[in-house]
């Protein structure tokens, strides 16, 4: 379909090095699927549903704690707490749950790499994850360092609210795409 694992590509024709890159990614996905490890998860009675469950729990804890930081940034939730308290107390939970989510997600990917390769939902999801990471990194590098000034205000300044709103929208999108991978084409 002229697309790789990480982006949606609508260019009609493939040329030269691009052909080899796309084929290379597809062959890596095919190789992953052919391993005994991948097959074991794919054909398992219990491992697949257990990994799926762990993945969902990881999402719940990580996106759930991100949600409360976003709501605090937007001035909708937890307004009585200083922003830094909300963010810094929740962050260890966000990060450890994120790790659980990434590991379980990698295992699910391993069990159906070629299907993910061809799934437009998987491609969009990876794109949204990258955007969410960039958004969080920009927020922590450029916006959060000035938090002392607005820490106790119920609503953060414009750029911080923007980061919160964007994060909320991106995570809703990531979860929606993630569930679509299992069912879509």
């Amino acid at each position, binding site marked *: 379909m002229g697309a790789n694992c990480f982006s949606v590509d609508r260019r009609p024709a493939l040329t030269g090095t691009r052909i080899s890159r796309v084929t290379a990614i597809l062959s890596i996905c095919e190789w992953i699927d052919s391993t005994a490890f991948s097959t074991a*998860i794919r*054909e398992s009675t219990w491992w697949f*549903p257990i990994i799926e469950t762990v993945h969902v729990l990881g999402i719940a804890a990580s996106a759930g704690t991100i949600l409360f930081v976003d709501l605090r940034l*937007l001035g909708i939730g937890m307004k009585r707490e200083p922003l830094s308290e909300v963010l810094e107390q929740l962050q260890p939970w966000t990060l450890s749950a994120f790790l659980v989510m990434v590991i379980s997600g990698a295992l699910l990917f391993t069990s159906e790499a070629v299907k993910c390769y061809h799934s437009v939902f998987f491609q969009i999801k990876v794109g949204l994850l990258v955007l969410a990471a960039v958004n969080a990194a920009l927020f922590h590098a450029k916006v959060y360092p000035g938090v002392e000034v607005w820490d106790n205000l119920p*609503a953060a300044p*414009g750029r911080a*609210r923007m980061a919160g*709103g964007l994060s909320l929208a991106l995570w*809703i999108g990531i979860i929606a795409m993630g569930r679509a991978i*299992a069912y879509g084409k």
Partner: protein
Amino acid sequence: MRARLAVLSLYAGLLLPVAPLGAHHSFAAEFDIKRPVKLKGTVTRMDWINPHSWIHIDVKGADGKVVAWMVEGGSPNALLRLGFTKAALPPGSEVVVEGFQAKDGSNRAVGQFVAFADGRKLFLGGSAPGAHGDADK
């Protein structure tokens, strides 16, 4: 301003999931209850895989032409609980599968059950109505 921005971002977030809803795997989104199919044919392969299994059958039409169909069933776990095993459908098995065809009109269906020549029936435990053998209980 703050409230407006909040509402706006929530709204943007809510819009995002609209696209995948079309791919929701509830029975009705992908398969058509008005297109029940009864496929009599030979099993060529069974994919015993998560999250959904697939039975591949060659169906010989009235005109003698062989058409390859793919029939979706439940996960390996769901199949085991319905009495299926990985070896239940070896290639070459002559079976009748009942189910519902895909909405896109392709030769794909979601299966209710597989019936063997000796009268045995195995339910497929997927999203098709009646795929869990409830009707027989």
